[in-house]
């Protein structure tokens, strides 16, 4: 995917190493070595993992952190591949889009931890006797937390490729392959990178959650920060929890500096805006590599190769030419024309019918499966508990908004402060809040608090930061002339908030709140049922219900719980967030 622009610049440069190489070389070699070590351990036989349980020695944490990081990376690669195929298919075929887009909408409403309950058994069977099956299950769970919004972003981009650029490609006779790699993929890239970052930020939570999981009588423990934490909880070692938190901090920091900063800075080139004014994102690492002579010379042939690959024609010219010959024949033309005209509606009809039948069949299978192990009273319970969780989510979003919106505005209006707080808020959003759950549990146990009330804040612990950093961004972007106008006309106090600031940050706030609410639903499965040693605390809620059913391996109830939660999330999105979002877009978007 690298469109390295070798043509002019590299020719002039000399390939001898310069001082920047001294820094860059160990970095690259070191990272390669780490991948090799981690990769070899991943394919180890299952016995060896069982034989060496997770050790709480902090000296082993770097190794564990490496394993978690590699899982994350593998999931990201899988998400990328999925995104390219799925989004392209949906964008290129109207009929495929009819199915794929609604399916994607549902997929992203299903709680992430719900996926793992099903897939663990499947993946274990896929690679018997090796940890690879368990690894795949964990990676798949992380994948499900990352892929959907990336696919949506690319789909949106592919649908909105600027018309004039499309016409250039068409006019010069670009093949489908050429068009994709030189126009569509670059156009989609900035949005994709941004969504990758958001996905990654949400993904750490699920790495931690998916490394130590019990489904029925199967317990899977994969060496990593998450299983280290699980062991610390089992042994009630608060100091080990502290080490895990520290390791995670360092890993997230490294990921940000070594992967995403360079990626974002590089992707800025692909933004379609012809004014050069906007501040370009910067990355010391990208600068470093762009300054090294040796690495540039090393990567130049690779860049040229990729560039050439982008320009392969790879089209079915032969087939199309054959079609052209047919076209030349007038009779054939009319025939083809007729065939194209009439059956189009028929084919659409048939396609609708196939989709409807498939949908009905899937729905029936699901109902039948649930009915095999759960009755109507279970359905009633699930909905009641769903209501409890819904109430929690609403209450938490309201509380978090009341706290963070005013604070965010105050911070955002002070550029110096915003510059300092913004990265911290983004960092906190990425930090897996479940690492901190044990601390809260210890507190609840110590002071004998009501879990129904006091477990709730855990659901929003990690996701509230989305509200904060979006509001900060909104307040920072608030036009200066409007601020001056408000000051000039002495608009102050409540009127200032109601008429000036809140409408100004509202579109940003909605973006943050949607993310926070989605994250809270996901977190409920972990947050409503927590443990500390032998003590376990459960709050009444749908998340706790799913967690319990998973621990018992009660599949019909897992399916029921997940179906109900997905339904509630979809309804919540459709009835609340979408209308609010549309309103913000229509009325409050500052041009």
């Amino acid at each position, binding site marked *: 995917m690298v469109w390295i622009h070798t*043509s002019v610049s590299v020719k002039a440069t000399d390939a001898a190493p310069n001082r920047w190489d001294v820094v860059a070389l160990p970095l690259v070699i070191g990272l390669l070595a780490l991948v090799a070590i981690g990769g070899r351990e991943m394919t180890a036989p299952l016995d060896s993992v069982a034989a060496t349980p997770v050790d709480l020695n902090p000296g082993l944490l770097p190794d564990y952190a490496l394993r978690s990081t590699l899982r994350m990376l593998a999931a990201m690669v899988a998400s990328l591949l999925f995104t390219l195929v799925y989004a392209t298919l949906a964008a290129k075929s109207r009929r495929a889009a009819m199915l794929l887009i609604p399916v994607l909408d549902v997929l992203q409403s299903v709680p992430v931890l719900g996926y793992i309950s099903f897939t663990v058994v499947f993946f274990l069977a896929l690679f018997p006797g090796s940890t690879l099956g368990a690894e795949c299950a964990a990676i798949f769970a992380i994948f499900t937390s990352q892929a959907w919004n990336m696919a949506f972003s690319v789909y949106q981009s592919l649908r909105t490729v*600027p018309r004039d650029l499309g*016409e250039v490609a*068409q006019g010069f006779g*670009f093949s489908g392959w*050429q068009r994709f790699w030189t126009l569509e993929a670059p156009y989609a890239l900035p949005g994709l990178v941004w969504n990758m970052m958001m996905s990654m930020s949400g993904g750490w939570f699920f790495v931690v959650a998916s490394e130590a999981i019990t489904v029925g009588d199967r317990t899977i423990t994969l060496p990593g920060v998450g299983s280290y934490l699980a062991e610390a909880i089992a042994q009630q070692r608060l100091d080990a929890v502290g080490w895990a938190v520290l390791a995670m901090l360092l890993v997230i920091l490294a990921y940000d500096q070594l992967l995403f900063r360079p990626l974002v800075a590089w992707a800025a080139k692909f933004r379609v805006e012809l004014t050069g004014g906007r501040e370009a994102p910067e990355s010391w690492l990208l600068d470093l590599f762009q300054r090294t002579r040796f690495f540039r010379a090393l990567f130049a042939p690779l860049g040229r190769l990729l560039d050439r690959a982008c320009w392969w024609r790879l089209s079915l010219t032969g087939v199309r030419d054959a079609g052209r010959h047919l076209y030349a024949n007038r009779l054939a033309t009319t025939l083809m024309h007729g065939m194209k005209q009439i059956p189009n509606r028929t084919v659409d009809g048939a396609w609708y019918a196939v989709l409807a039948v498939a949908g009905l069949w899937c729905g029936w299978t699901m109902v039948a499966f649930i009915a095999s192990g759960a009755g109507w009273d279970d359905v009633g319970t699930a909905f009641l508990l769903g209501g409890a969780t819904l109430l929690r989510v609403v209450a938490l979003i309201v509380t978090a908004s009341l706290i963070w919106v005013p604070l965010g505005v105050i911070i955002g209006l002070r550029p110096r402060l915003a510059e300092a707080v913004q990265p911290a808020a983004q960092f906190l959003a990425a930090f897996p809040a479940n690492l901190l759950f044990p601390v809260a549990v210890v507190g609840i146990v110590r002071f004998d608090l009501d879990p129904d009330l006091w477990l709730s804040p855990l659901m929003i612990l990690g996701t509230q930061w989305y509200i904060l950093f979006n509001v900060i961004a909104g307040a920072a972007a608030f036009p200066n002339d409007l601020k001056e106008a408000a000051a000039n006309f002495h608009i102050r106090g409540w009127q200032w908030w109601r008429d000036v600031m809140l409408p100004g940050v509202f579109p940003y706030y909605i973006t943050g709140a949607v993310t926070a609410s989605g994250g809270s639903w996901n977190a409920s499965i972990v947050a409503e049922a927590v443990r500390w040693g032998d003590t376990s605390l459960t709050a009444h809620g749908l998340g706790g219900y799913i967690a319990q059913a998973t621990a018992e391996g009660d599949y019909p109830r897992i399916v029921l719980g997940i179906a109900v939660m997905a339904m509630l999330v979809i309804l919540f999105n459709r009835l609340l967030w979408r209308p609010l979002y549309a309103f913000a877009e229509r009325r409050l978007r500052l041009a």
Partner: protein
Amino acid sequence: MLNTTTSTVTAPLFALTNVRQAYPKPSGQEYVVLDGVDLTLTNGEIVGLLGRSGSGKSTLLRVVAGLVRPTAGDVRHNGAPVDGPTDGIAMVFQTFALFPWMTVWENVMAGLKAKGVPTKEAEARTEEAIDLIGLSGFESAYPKELSGGMRQRVGFARALVVHPEILLMDEPFSALDVLTAETLRTDLLDLWMEQRLPIQSILMVTHNIEEAVLMCDRILVFSSNPGRVAAEIRVTLPHPRNRLEPDFRALVDDIYALMTARKPLSAASPDAKRPPAYAEPLAHVSTNLLAGLLETLASPAYHGKADLPHLAAALQHEIDDLFPIAEALHQLGFAEMEEGDIRLTEPGRLFAESGVEDRKRLFAEHLVLRVPLAAHIHAALKRAANHRLPAGPLHAALAAHMSDGYADETLRAITSWARYAELFTYDDESESFGFEDLE
């Protein structure tokens, strides 16, 4: 005619016959963009397509480029039917349409790479095109680092590097400032006159009359709704042409007159089902502009009558800006257009001399009287029990007879005029028309 380098007796370079372009509307009716258009291009000529926005000239250009397949009609390039983008035709865009992630060098080379031209040859040709068009030194720059003029030069180089027979230009200078546009025009004309361009013919779309007269050997004037060729004008002035020469001015005046003659230009096809009177597209012109032009015309400088080209020059407007204002005034009965002149009517003079309240009253009267859509909405509001009229059905009714874009603009126009006249108003929340201050 200049430029008669070679004259071939064989098939013309490019020929369109009886081309029609129509889009089906959900209502079952068709929205016709182009109707019965003929066009031939021969070696060595620059042909201009001149017309208002919405006259289908850009669509016609895309038909020639093979980007749009016409609903009906015959399209031939060197005698062979065109059924897709063909080699030998390249286009320059109003918006430049440069790939932002490619350097100047890569943008220019893109067309050659797509065709699989060997690297050596592609590089040589790219360098040649870049030198020719005056971009040397800018090879490694990204489009966002360049000024508008330089960007459009890249657009030209990218089109020329594939050595097309026909160069298509879609309002190539209209996104540039006046000075830059003039420089680019003269540079291009010089290269063309010196026969240094690897092309045989240029077809350009423009809405700037002077630009057309300055550059073209032949000008096709388009009428709107549906787009048709209303007139063909040969320009035989020798190059380099001087904008101030009397012959040049006379030709510009003639074309203005041609384009302001209203009825003959938009003759409706007789067999078409006649749309209701209110389904007439309106251009959204701010009432400030209307009042401004009326005041200008009433001022001592003009004494109620002005020559449109002169007025356009004085107000630094292009025809696309000035015509809609003049036409709106004409429709409202505040001014009349004929022979390229605009003349204030009695009500127009009265409007210009009145105060705010009288102006609004006069405007309201004329709106109901002269704009059928305003009368239609006003009457419907009076009839309705709750004095409200939802905009959705009205939009659908309009869109049955015009494109969605025009229906939007027509509703925007009537809303802003009615608000100014305090005749009725529009509520964005409920998306409906209603009377003001109705409790």
